[in-house]
């Protein structure tokens, strides 16, 4: 009889704790941080990625709506850690990106990210204006780089074709184009600006 009462008591305590657990958050708001994203640019932000600094992929887009100029969005309940952030703005001509690294998200603190026009990367498009030759390699490096770096394309750009290259840091670039036949083409000190699609015609 005494054992039965003890079992009932334990069950009642368990019941109370489990019901309370439904209402009391294990990670209450005061133990999590927030990130506020202020759009002070002219672009409309359509994606926001937030990944732990030690994570090797960006994961999914955290926005469920567009963030227009002068608008803002707050991301709450973020587990304290160091994070990297990336945003995307899809404009009429191209798509642009902006980054912030090593954001120290801490309990009960809001990190404010301000996005300006100058925050964004720029884009470049190259038209193949020849009638017979294909572009088989394109090298794009900062103007002060000593070598040509990576080939930026994974397949040839045929006659009449167009290449759009996204996510270049603003600045001056040198460009080398290798053709399937004929001499190489060079462009020097091409100015890439934030939120601008720069066009090159190659032949």
């Amino acid at each position: 009889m005494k054992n039965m009462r003890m079992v009932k008591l334990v069950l009642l305590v368990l019941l109370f704790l489990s019901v309370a657990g439904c209402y009391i958050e294990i990670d209450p708001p005061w133990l999590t941080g927030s990130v506020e994203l202020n759009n002070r640019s002219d672009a409309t932000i359509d994606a926001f990625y937030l990944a732990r600094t030690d994570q090797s992929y960006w994961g999914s887009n955290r926005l469920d709506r567009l963030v227009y100029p002068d608008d803002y969005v707050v991301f709450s309940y973020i587990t304290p850690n160091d994070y990297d952030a990336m945003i995307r703005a899809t404009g009429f001509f191209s798509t642009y990106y902006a980054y912030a690294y090593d954001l120290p998200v801490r309990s009960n603190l809001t990190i404010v990210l301000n996005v300006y026009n100058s925050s964004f990367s720029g884009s470049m498009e190259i038209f193949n204006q020849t009638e017979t030759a294909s572009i088989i390699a394109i090298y794009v490096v900062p103007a002060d780089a000593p070598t040509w770096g990576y080939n930026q394309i994974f397949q040839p750009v045929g006659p009449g074709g167009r290449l759009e290259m996204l996510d270049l840091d603003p600045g001056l670039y040198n460009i080398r184009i290798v053709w399937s036949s004929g001499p190489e083409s060079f462009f020097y000190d091409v100015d890439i600006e934030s939120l601008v699609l720069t066009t090159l015609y190659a032949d």
Partner: protein
Amino acid sequence: MLHSLFHKSALALVILFTAVSVASAASVSHKREVLTPAGSQGIQAFQAEDGEDKPLSAKPTRLRDKSLTDAESEDAAVMTVRYKPYREGSGEARVKD
């Protein structure tokens, strides 16, 4: 007899309710990792008012090494690529003229 039956039924109900509420609590704590965009609903009361101001930049403090799947254009005449940032000592070593 009736008294004992009542006790047993009550005990069974308590056990069932405990199991359900434990499962419910577990699912709530699982969902807590999701980031919630609050949108224009305003900053919530628990947030500190003096947050750290950190402007975003197109110039990363280190190379962009996180992966993101890029959609490739369906039009064969148009190719879209993401710029592979220059790294000294990588890629073609040919010196620029």
